[in-house]
């Protein structure tokens, strides 16, 4: 069964008088252990689709199934629970909290949860992404590539089924971008997760299992 499945998704934005149709009937799915790249020109609806997959936004029409569970009509708090348990996010500009150390940033998603202590797993994940000796550094003391690795470790702390990345290499140079992609490929197998990444980065295509191209809110096949 697909870990995520979008069926006939339409997303419209209403801004004043104008209605923008960002997605015009999109079908999409991803499986565990594969990396799917989403490409397409700017404004074609890539971020919009990723936000719907990530349960950060809800579609105007269509259904969203997470591991067979129809979450289309979930309310805000139910969606939060699903994000917490099944999804990991990596953003273009990292979005680490500046006053927390690397290991605390990784623990962040479970920081309010007293029932589990993720400190060990957080340190383990930082070791996996090659930051075993930077545990107590704050984001300001880390390079861009290192910050993005911390973000990846954070995305994995709750053992998600899906890792979502919107332009993960967008703010990194070619070389650093490549190491991040290698890291993600390794983790995809190790953790058996689906990775869905939006990108403009040509070099990323070499790492993808499948490439989906969006043009004007429609998937090209």
């Amino acid at each position, binding site marked *: 069964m697909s870990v995520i499945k979008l069926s006939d998704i339409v997303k419209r934005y209403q801004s004043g008088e104008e209605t923008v149709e960002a997605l015009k009937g999109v079908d999409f799915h991803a499986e565990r252990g594969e990396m799917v790249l989403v490409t397409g020109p700017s404004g074609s609806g890539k971020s919009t689709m990723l*936000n719907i997959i*990530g349960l*950060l*936004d809800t579609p105007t029409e269509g259904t969203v199934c997470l591991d067979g569970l129809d979450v289309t009509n979930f309310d*805000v*708090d139910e969606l*939060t*629970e699903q*994000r*917490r*348990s099944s*999804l*990991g*996010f990596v*953003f273009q500009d990292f*979005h680490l*909290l*500046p*006053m*927390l150390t690397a290991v605390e940033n990784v623990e*962040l*998603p479970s*920081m*309010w949860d007293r029932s589990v202590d993720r400190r060990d797993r957080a340190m383990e994940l930082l070791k996996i992404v090659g930051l075993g000796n930077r545990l107590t550094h704050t984001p300001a003391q880390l390079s861009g590539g290192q910050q993005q690795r911390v973000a990846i470790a*954070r*995305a994995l702390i*709750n053992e998600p089924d899906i890792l979502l990345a919107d332009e993960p290499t967008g703010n990194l140079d070619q070389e650093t971008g490549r190491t991040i992609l290698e890291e993600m490929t390794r983790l995809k197998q190790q953790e058996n997760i689906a990775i869905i990444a939006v990108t403009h980065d040509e070099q990323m295509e070499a790492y993808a299992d499948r490439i989906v191209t969006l043009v004007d809110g429609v998937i090209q096949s």
Partner: protein
Amino acid sequence: MAWRNLGRNRMRTGLAALGIIIGVVAIVSLGMAGVALQQQATSDLGSLTNEVSVSAGADSDEDGVTEDQVEEIESIITDAQVIPQKTNSTEIETRSGNAYVSVTGVTNASALYDVSSGTAPDRLETGALISNSTAQELGLEVGDPVAYEGQLYRIRGLIEADDGFGGGGRGELVIPVSGLRDQQYYDSVTIITGSGDTAEATADRLEERFNVDGRDEEEELQINTFAGAQESINSFLNTLQLALLGIGSISLVVASVAILNVMLMSTIERRGEIGVLRAVGIRRGEVLRMILTEAMFLGVVGGIVGAILSLAVGFVMFNLITGDAIAVLEWESSQYLLYGFVFAVVTSVLSGIYPAWKASNDRPVEALRG
């Protein structure tokens, strides 16, 4: 977490805390000032307001308070000192000059008079007390003799100048009651009670006993208290206290607005971060609690620092107004420390509610976009 968020923008946190501290100090010290003034005013008046003075009434057959009436008063009033006095006036002559003084015959001199040197006996049976000023005028000292109606009295103490009202400019000579045995009746009876309120109650009991006879009212004894003065002073002080607290409340409102502003600014500034928290699965309630905790930390720290500063201000104020700095610790004034602290915490949390609610309900997609 909350703690570190506050630590991040020290300047802003510091300013917010300062707002709270100023609010607390304003409320507490104004409240304490009211208490200090009240205490000082009461102690200035205290020697008069707790007294009841009794003299012959308009309908009395005698021109004084009789021995029987004194005994009757004593039998009713068991919880206060009853001090009958006879008064007259005379001219004292000494080698260095003459002085007119009022003469008081009293047994329990210590209850009525404070002496600056010598002693005021509980039972004055021999000897006399004389006003300081008169003694100085006439060059008299403790141990010197004074004559009244042919009888010599040795001075046993000098009466301190009375700083309440009454007394007048005239000097006073205090001798045993036996020295005025020509006068059959007492001119007045002073009853010294514990407070203004008991004086009032005592006066009522005496009125009831002596001046109300069935339906008729007859003034057998004239009974006076200074309660009226006490009352008008109390009501003035209450007004003053309200005015002080009013000023305090204004600073309170200003402080709340400052806290609200700081919390609002800090959540707006961190919108993206809060969006990240929500995106990675932090619940709305958890974000709410985090921001409220920050507000509460601010309130607690501001409240504690404010209370400490207010205590210092209180010490200085009590020292200046009443001369007794330690009195600030008594509950009557120290309760304002508690109020100030509670105010700081409560307003901080209240001011945090709106920003916290706003931040936790912000949609993460929008927050992340910027």
